[in-house]
């Protein structure tokens, strides 16, 4: 199926509802709103992060946008 990316990241800190995540490898750093973290996640926790492409949802969203563009173009 779709390729998957899995990595581990530490919650370095949480400021103003935004968690700063530092992957265990590499020099990257990224942030996520706390609302997207599992309940109970706190500073210092290590998170397993897995990312999958959702080809179906992508296709569906692209189709919806294209349809609306066509509808608007026809309407002028």
């Amino acid at each position, binding site marked *: 199926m779709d390729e998957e990316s899995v990595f581990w990241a530490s919650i370095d800190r949480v400021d103003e509802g935004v968690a700063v995540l530092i992957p265990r490898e590499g020099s990257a750093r990224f942030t996520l709103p706390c609302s997207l973290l599992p309940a109970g996640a706190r500073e210092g926790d290590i998170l397993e992060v897995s990312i999958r492409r959702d080809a179906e949802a992508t296709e569906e*969203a*692209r*189709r919806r946008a*294209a349809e*609306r*563009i066509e509808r*608007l173009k026809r*309407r*002028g």
Partner: protein
Amino acid sequence: MSSTPARYLVCIALCVCTLACLITAGCSAPGGEEPGITPLPATEPPATPGPAITLPVTATAPASEPTAAPTGGSGPAGDLLIHFIDVGQGDAILLQFHNRTMLVDAGERGMEERVIRYLNGQGVDRLDAVVATHAHSDHIGGLAGVITAFPVGRFVDAAQPQTTATYENLLAVVEEQGIPYTAAVRGQKIALDPELEILILNPRDDPIGDMNEDSVVLKVTLGEVSCLLAGDAGAAAEEDMLDAGLDLDADVLKVGHHGSLYASSPEFLTAVSPTISVIMVGAGNDYGHPHQETLDRLEAIGSRIYRTDIDGTILVSTDGRVIEVATAATTPPALSGLQITALDLVGEAVTITNAGDTAVNLTGWTIADEGASSTYTFPVFSLPPGAEVSLHTGEGSDNATALYWGRKTAVWNNDGDTATLADANGTVVSTLER
């Protein structure tokens, strides 16, 4: 919902005519063409010098910068005003020509309030045209809010199906509000005013297939002065525009893609040969924009560089002959006599008085409460000598004596608070404790 008049037109020019023009001598001046359906201006060799314009390209004195006049006012060089609104990392550009208005992009999500406030400050009550250069959120994020706040004559879109909720929602608003829609294609013109030519140079008919490269690129011409707004177009789009033989020569360039090194190729910059370059970029952004390579290339062609991260909001004005540039940050402080004279904690208003002899340009200045937990940034606003202005916490329409923060909750602590007025560089000018 809103019944906006449909007098607004986007005229489609036939690209075939470009070829016809190519072999016709003396067909190169875009300014002389009549409005309506006209072909693209013919190609000029890239090395052709631009129109002979006087360029006192210096920051103007504060008194000559437009204020928040209800009619939109006129700049020092009159007629056409192009406001490069500081929205951090992102684009938001307002064009005003007489009483006609066009907005190109509206910054990132969350920037709509800032853009709306700025437009209100300029006396804008309607947008004749709104252009979404491409569907990335640093350009269209604030658009849904803005087109909800003002009647819009026509929405011009890059029309590349992006999958984000941001874009989907924007198009839904366009559809629900019944705003006339145009998918931008090279060769079309946006007919804002017969005196003003607004040509769409990109995307081409068969898109390149990349959101940035298919950005709407506009060339705005008034008389002898042209301004090229490049969106996030990069080297591929630039090469395509060059190959298509378009007349890219312009005096002012809104540099493509926030000064990325993957835009602004030397060949493109040579063809545009802008005297003035504007880079719309946020301080300390994640991308390292603007890249040093781009700055070097712009310097190599002798272009004067303005940046929203350094200069704040940048206002270019022209009468079609002379260009003037005013910025929020380069305006002399002229601090004497300017102070906070009242702070009404319960009534939620702070009053600033100019006791000096000259007008003070407050554009980009800030008012903050104690601990700076809330900060208000002034839109383009000039306070005449002897005048005072009140900043109200709530919502309302800005005018010469009252500005509105647009907040739903109180800012000032009724048990005691301190108001701090700082200039565009962050230098504290006046404080008042109550």
